[in-house]
């Protein structure tokens, strides 16, 4: 504990030793220098006149955005239904695909820790690294625009999320129960069904509902790249500079997101 005695009497207390202070100071110096360097590189091409003009632009757009065009709402009901379907069916497809992946990735259930587990882990990382909008961009090019591309995009992105959380839950189970089931002479499948599945069921339900909530949020914007749902209306309204419609769509998206968050909180509360 660095305590400095003063020549004229009395002592002062400090949190770090002098060596520690220098190390911390250098750490901050490097961090700040690196950030400034990144900032310089990033803003090389920035046209500052546009940036300084932003408040005027913001005020201009803001003035065009109010009031929202309420009469546009009936046209949004079908897209909302599509959005809900993209999220729900995508989540269901992701469950079907991610459960086997999770069992292959968990250290205690994988058939081969040397070969299968790394492959399953790579699948999970690959799915997680790529945002659903990018999956949608790819799938629209492959499958054509529409709801189907959105569903597959949501499913592909969710495999990594559900798979990762689920395999961590599987690794944390109580082995004693599995041992007890196995001791009764249960087969591999029976051990899975009566020893492991009941233990991960609450976690699984929670994870799924959580991901469904995120998927509702993400499926509202998938239409921006052509993958169906309310985002398609957002895209066309933005392209035609119909700002009052944009406002209404943003409000509807906001309401949807809040509603899905409420539903998922309720369901998770009921389950756990």
């Amino acid at each position: 504990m660095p305590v400095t005695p003063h020549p004229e009497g009395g002592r002062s207390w400090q949190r770090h030793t002098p060596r520690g202070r220098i190390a911390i100071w250098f750490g901050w110096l490097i961090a700040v220098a690196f950030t400034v360097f990144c900032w310089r590189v990033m803003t090389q091409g920035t046209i500052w006149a546009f940036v300084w003009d932003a408040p005027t632009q913001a005020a201009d757009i803001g003035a065009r955005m109010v009031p929202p065009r309420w009469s546009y709402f009936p046209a949004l009901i079908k897209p909302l239904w599509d959005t809900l379907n993209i999220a729900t069916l995508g989540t269901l497809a992701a469950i079907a695909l991610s459960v086997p992946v999770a069992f292959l990735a968990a250290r205690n259930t994988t058939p081969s820790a040397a070969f299968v587990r790394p492959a399953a882990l790579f699948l999970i990382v690959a799915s997680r690294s790529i945002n659903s909008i990018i999956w949608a961009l790819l799938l629209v090019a492959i499958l054509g625009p529409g709801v189907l591309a959105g569903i597959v995009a949501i499913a592909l992105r969710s495999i990594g999320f559900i798979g990762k959380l689920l395999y961590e839950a599987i690794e944390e189970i109580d082995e004693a129960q599995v041992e007890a089931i196995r001791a009764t002479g249960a087969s591999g499948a029976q051990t899975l069904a009566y020893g492991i599945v009941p233990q991960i069921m609450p976690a699984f339900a929670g994870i799924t509902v959580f991901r469904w909530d995120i998927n509702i949020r993400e499926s509202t914007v998938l239409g921006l790249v052509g993958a169906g749902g309310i985002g398609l209306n957002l895209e066309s309204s933005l392209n035609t500079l119909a700002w009052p419609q944009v406002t209404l769509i943003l409000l509807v998206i906001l309401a949807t997101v809040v509603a899905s968050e409420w539903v998922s909180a309720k369901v998770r509360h009921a389950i756990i």
Partner: protein
Amino acid sequence: MSANPAPARRWRPLPFIANPWLRYALLAGAALYLALALGSIEVNWARLSDGWARGLRFVSGFLEPNFSRRWDDIVQGMIESLTMTVTSTVAGIAISVPIGIGAARNLVPRPVYFLCRAIIAVSRSLQEIIVAILLVAMVGFGPFAGFLTLSFATIGFLSKLLAEDIEDIDPAPVEAIRATGAPWPSLIAFAVLPQVAPRLLGLSLYRLDINFRESAVVGIVGAGGIGATLNTAIDRYEFDSAAAILILIIAIVMASEYVSGLIRGRVK
């Protein structure tokens, strides 16, 4: 002595939902929803069979990615994405720490608490890509719009988790520091921040990761970064270049997860 032996009963696991009426109603509702939802999807089978060949080309592109055709664009996009990630994470942290402290119920007066919670709610409920569209319209194309978007998104994430963490701290050190007569800033610096610092570091590293992934998205709407390059590659059906970019993104995300795992392990 010999009563009839009780008929063999088959044991069944307890149902997940105890009330049978609720259980069957939920099942029926789910079946009805599935039928309606699947019925409302329009699938264009002709387009799908066209797409099959493209899908195969994409898969083969993944096996033989083409890094060279768009190498200059890829480097430029990656530099934009990475610098955008670093600057927006730093700016996001700098703004989130005060807001996070302000949103902790146990440290600040009620009006400040509600103000900070409102800021967090706004930031969390707007998706990155929508914010990016609006900001591109305001400040023009390029990574600066992306920087603003990601900083804005970071605030909602980091402040919320930091505030929850501060609300969970051990009150004893706070009490002890307060008993010495320390002013409020010293209270934060010596009693609160040391308790949440390791977790703040972990969250910041996690957010750095998320920001990099999101930086690939904001480029699609013109806010700079690798997303623009990716968008061009996909629009021109150059699946081998697209695969190269996706492989780079996955590699960087894996590397950063590994490094942040190491750092978090050392700090704990």
